[in-house]
Structures are given as structure tokens and as C-alpha cells.
């Protein structure tokens, strides 16, 4: 497995994190959480909203985290297990814009775009989880997260990750998911959704941050703890410091989850991005992102927690060369290190913009990444001494049964990255091929529609949410 940190270095980072938590402390602006931390043995200053957490508490929290996490698809054939040796991929989340398929220009995303995206995600073999990739502008702003989730659950068959504006909104989202599986209890047993949350700053959990975290834990949903600082801006410019900082953040979040609901599954889902120091732009495609993701994966493994990192990120606004090389490099590094999930598929412009064609190209990149993880199979059958002997010094292997037998096991057959395929499709390059593929999937791929009575329940829940939240 690919490593960038030695075990001494991991321990040094772990130690730095514990120093941060013990001495600098974490702001937790939530009375209930502060009380839980204080009762557990943390040094809490209620007026300053600060908790200084001793390392023995952190260790206890980490011990309670399940090593395996099961995520369920809306259709069971898409069930997943996050465990050692498994690597999956999901789309980026939360884009407000989309690259228009016809015009090639960037515009605000609509409900139709989200429906199309979910359909394509369903059809692509290398995207295993739906993340809310766009937040449509035609949904009311106060309840946009809820409507987005409803649209996703209606159109998807794979597992869905959720994000939410706040704990009040979360309740409606939970009701939607429960309606799909039957009840809250069914949802707890078979979570078809998992929850994403990120503290406002690594050592600052706001009141709503904690409410969201508690909300997920209340229903036993697997929780992705996702601090997302930027080096030089909201964390140190130095990579080791950034790793230690985000690590402290995740460990504090894990402890809170375990205090609220012991043995609640947790995912180590940090995103450390960099900033262009000339312009203030976020750079999701910088190589340091991939490098730090390797560090994050190694830290997660050290604690025995599944990891989800960036990923297929790019700072470029357009389809093309920069996008391709940034995604390929930053996607490959953490995968080789053993990440359980690689994020970012479909993203452009540091996840401000989503693109359906890019999603298809990313699926292709992911095929190559997954193949590289499989490595080289060395055994008698693949060393194939007998086959070589039979072919003799003249060595013609095309007609050998061994070749036909092992072709698909040993070689990734590209779906689009083949000159022959492009010619057949009438595409000049892979971008054109991706556009054609998008249209093909949209017209041909079938998803089983949601039951009528579940749809009715959805309508009812959305109506209630709108009434309560829209001013």
C-alpha cells in the first residue's frame, strides 16, 4: 500500500492533535454537548464555550467506533461495506452551478439537472454513492436541502449521502428516508442514507453543527465528519500542521458522537484544500490536496476508522487537459493508500460547478484507479510458464485460450478511452464521446420509480416542510 507517512510521523501528528485538544481546546457552542463532555471528564469552560479534552477520552471515543460500516442501497444490489481493502467512489456534493450540456456554458442548476445527474450516477459502474451533487435553484432556499434529498431519493437506486442546513430541516429529510424503507427503525437497521457534517472551523463546532451531528446520531445514521480547512487560511500552510489540525477536529467530533450514541458508525471524511495565494481562489486540484488525502487515509487507518477523501478535484472551470491531469493525480494517490471512498466525481471549479460529461469521464478515470488498486496477480496461472512454453520462441499468443480466459480479469477495457470506440461513436475526442454517452444514458437507462404511496408521503412531507420553513 502506498504510504507517505512513516509510523513515527503518524504518531507525531497524533501527539500534536492531542496537544491541541488538551491545550488549545475546541469551541463547542452547544450546552448539551458541553455538558456531555464535562461529565465524561473534559475540562469545560461553559462561559467561553470551550472544551479542553484529555487524550484518554479521545482514545476511549475512538475505541468505540465500528471498524466496518454498512451502507445500504435503495435497491439491495447496491449495498456496500466500508472495510479494510474496499475502495469506492462518490460524486462531489453541493454545487450550485452546472455546465450546460448543449451550450457548454456555466449556469445555475435546476431540478431537471439533479434528476439527470442522479440517473447517470445510477448507470455508472464506478460511482457507488449518490451525494447531493447540485442544489437546484428552483427549490425554495429555506428548504432546498429537503427538496434536493426528496428528488434524489425519488430517482436513485444507490445509497445516498445527505447534507442539511440544520436540525429542523434534518427531521424532514429523515422522514423522507424512513418513508422509503418503511419506518425509523427500518432506517436505523438499514441506513439507505448517511449524514455529512463539517465543523465551521476545525476547532470550532457551532450550535447548528452540533445539532446536526446529534440529529444524525439520534437515528443511528453513519456520520461523515468532514472538516474542510484551507491551508494558509483556516489552517496552517504547512501540511503536517494541517493534518494534525484536521485530525484533532475529527477526533473531537468522533468523541461527541460516541458520547451521544455509543458505537454509532463514523467516517473520517476530511477535505483539506489549498488556496491560490494570488487570488484567494480555492484550489481543489492542487497536488497538495492529494498528498494530504494520503496522510488523512493513513491517520484514519491508524485509528481503525473508514476514510473518505478528495479525490477527483480540479480547480479548472472547463472540461479538458488541466481537469484531467489534476483529477487523475489527486484521485490516484489516496486510492493507492487505501482510502475507502474517493470523492469528487463530476466536479469542476473546486466543486462550484457540476458537469454531466465530466461525471462520465471521471467514471473512466475511476476505472483506471480501481484497476491500479487491484495490482498484479502473481501465481502459476498468471506466470503462465506452460503457455509460454507452448507458444515457443516464436511466441504468438493471440490464439491461445489462456489469453481469452484472462483478458477481462487482467486488463481494464476502457469504455471510452479507445480510438476505435471514439471513431465508432463519431466522436473527435473523449469529451465529445462523454457528451454522447450522457445523452445515451439519459434516453436508455431505466430506474424503477418510487411506489405511489411513498410518493404521496413525500408530497405530504414536503408540503409540511415548506409551510413551516418558508417565510
Amino acid at each position, binding site marked *: 500500500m502506498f504510504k507517505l507517512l512513516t509510523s513515527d510521523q503518524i504518531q507525531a501528528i497524533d501527539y500534536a492533535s492531542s496537544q491541541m485538544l488538551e491545550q488549545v481546546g475546541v469551541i463547542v457552542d452547544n450546552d448539551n454537548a458541553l455538558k456531555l463532555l464535562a461529565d465524561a471528564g473534559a475540562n469545560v469552560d461553559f462561559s467561553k464555550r470551550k472544551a479542553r479534552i484529555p487524550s484518554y477520552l479521545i482514545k476511549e471515543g475512538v475505541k468505540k467506533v465500528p471498524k466496518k460500516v454498512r451502507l445500504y442501497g435503495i435497491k439491495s444490489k447496491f449495498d456496500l461495506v466500508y472495510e479494510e481493502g474496499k475502495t469506492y467512489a462518490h460524486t462531489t456534493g453541493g454545487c*450550485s452551478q452546472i455546465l450546460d450540456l448543449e451550450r457548454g456554458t456555466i449556469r445555475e442548476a435546476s431540478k431537471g439537472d439533479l434528476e439527470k445527474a442522479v440517473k447517470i450516477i445510477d448507470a455508472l459502474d464506478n460511482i457507488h454513492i449518490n451525494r447531493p451533487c447540485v442544489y437546484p435553484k428552483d427549490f425554495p432556499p429555506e428548504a432546498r436541502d429537503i427538496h434536493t434529498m426528496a428528488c434524489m431519493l425519488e430517482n436513485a437506486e444507490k445509497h445516498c449521502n445527505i447534507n442539511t*442546513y*440544520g436540525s429542523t430541516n434534518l427531521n424532514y429529510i429523515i422522514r423522507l428516508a424512513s418513508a422509503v424503507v418503511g419506518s425509523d427503525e427500518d432506517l436505523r437497521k438499514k441506513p439507505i442514507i448517511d449524514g455529512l457534517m463539517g465543523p*465551521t472551523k476545525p476547532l470550532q463546532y*457551532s450550535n447548528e453543527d452540533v445539532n446536526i451531528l446529534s440529529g444524525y446520531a439520534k437515528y443511528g445514521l453513519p456520520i461523515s465528519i468532514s472538516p474542510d480547512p484551507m491551508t494558509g*487560511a483556516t489552517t496552517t500552510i504547512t501540511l503536517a500542521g494541517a493534518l494534525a489540525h484536521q485530525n484533532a477536529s475529527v477526533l473531537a467530533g468522533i468523541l461527541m458522537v460516541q458520547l451521544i450514541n455509543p458505537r454509532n458508525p463514523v467516517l473520517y471524511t476530511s477535505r483539506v484544500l489549498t488556496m491560490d495565494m494570488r*487570488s*484567494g481562489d480555492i484550489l481543489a486540484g492542487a497536488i497538495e490536496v492529494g498528498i494530504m488525502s494520503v496522510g488523512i487515509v493513513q491517520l484514519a487507518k491508524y485509528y481503525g476508522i473508514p476514510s473518505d477523501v478528495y479525490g477527483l478535484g480540479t480547480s479548472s472551470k472547463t472540461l479538458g487537459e488541466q481537469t484531467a491531469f489534476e483529477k487523475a493525480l489527486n484521485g490516484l494517490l489516496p486510492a493507492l493508500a487505501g482510502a475507502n471512498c474517493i470523492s469528487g466525481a463530476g466536479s469542476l471549479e473546486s466543486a*462550484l460547478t457540476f458537469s454531466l460529461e465530466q461525471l462520465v469521464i471521471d467514471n473512466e478515470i475511476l476505472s483506471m484507479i480501481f484497476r491500479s488498486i487491484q495490482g498484479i496477480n502473481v501465481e502459476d496461472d498468471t506466470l503462465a510458464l506452460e503457455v509460454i512454453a507452448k507458444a515457443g520462441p516464436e511466441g504468438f499468443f493471440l490464439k491461445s485460450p489462456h489469453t481469452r480466459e484472462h483478458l477481462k480479469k487482467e486488463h481494464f477495457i476502457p469504455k471510452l478511452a479507445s480510438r476505435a470506440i471514439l471513431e465508432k461513436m463519431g466522436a473527435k475526442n473523449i469529451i465529445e464521446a462523454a457528451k454522447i454517452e450522457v445523452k445515451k444514458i439519459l434516453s436508455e437507462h431505466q430506474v424503477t420509480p418510487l411506489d405511489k404511496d411513498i410518493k404521496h408521503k413525500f408530497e405530504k412531507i414536503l408540503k409540511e416542510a415548506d409551510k413551516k420553513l418558508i417565510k
Partner: protein
Amino acid sequence: MSSGIKKEILEKLAQAVIDGNLEEAEKLTSEAIEEGLDPIEVIENGLVGGIRVVGDKFETMELFLPDLMMAAEAMEVCLKIVKPVILSRGISRKPLGKVVLGTVAGDIHDLGKKLVGTYLTTRGFEVIDAGVDVPVERFVEMVQRFKPDILGLSALLTSTLPQQGKVIEALKNAGLRDKVKVMVGGATVTKRWADEIGADAYADNFAAAIEAAKKLVKNKEVK
């Protein structure tokens, strides 16, 4: 004191600001005041002179954001020394423009706002930071109190974006709307949104925010 020595002190001060050397800048500022230099000159030729160079070099990408921030920090530290002197003598200084910046209620993201504020300072604006999670009423209060040329509203979360519209409404109701230019900013802000709420300018990134602010001040007719 000879004009040669005066010039030297101010040049050294400007350089200390350019280098982001807080200690040196502080020392030189105090020295300048003690030697009887005109405090306005200290600001204009020493501090602003230095920061303008930093701003120029930032635009040509010779210097980076950390350089900008440290230079601005040095300038802040020195202004704290010079301002009381100006106040006690009853003289005044006219900045290029006055800007109030704040992150709207329910939102505590402030990185973009900090960057924009710092940069505007380097370009000669007086920037008043209202902080984060600022309620509508407080923005109105600050416009009444400080009479800024520009009010900048920052919102990162799509759920807090509506607050920007509410502030503009409140300004209208208080009869203040035409007294200030309103700029809205944040990664998810769009022209359509800005037009919908009647903002005077918008920006979805740092560079655009600077351009928009410069334009607004150029076109100002209000003051």
C-alpha cells in the same frame, strides 16, 4: 529636524510596512511622532505609501496574500499610534472611501470578507468590520452611524443568502437605501440574485469583489 532625515524615516517606515515587519514599523512610527513629523504625512507617505506598493505588487502577482495581510497588519498597528495624535490635534484625514463589511445573520464564515477588507485598506479605503452573524438591525445602525460609501454583505451558505435581501429592505424602510451603495458577496451569489434584491454590485470571488468596489467608488454620486 532636516527634511532629509524626515524623508529617511518615512521611507524606512514605508519599507517596514512593505516587509510586514510589525516591530520595526511600530518603532519607526513612534520615532516619527516623537520627532514632530506631521501625523498626516506619517500616514500618507509612510503607511499608505508602503501599503500602496504592496497592493501594486500584489496585482502584478509579485507578492502574495500573506504579504498583503502582514503589511495591512503592520499598518493597523501603526494607525493605532497615529490616530490618537490626530484626534488630539483636531485635524482630519480623508480616506478614498469608507466601507462597512459584515457577514449576515446565521453565517459565521468570514475569510472572503477579511480578504476584501484587507485589500480595500491597502487601496486607501477606511474599512469597518461589523463581524459575523450580524443581524439586519445592526447593519442599519452601522450605516446610520458611520455613513459609509459602500456596505458589503457576505454570505457563504445558500440558507443565509436571503438575509442580504432583508438588509436592503431594511435600509429602504429606514430611508437610507439611497445613501449607500450595497455590494453582496459569497461563492453562491449570482447576478440574478443581486438584481433580484436590488444590490448595486455583486461578487462571487475575491478578485471580482475588488473590481466591483473600485467601480462603485468611482461612480459614487451620493457623497
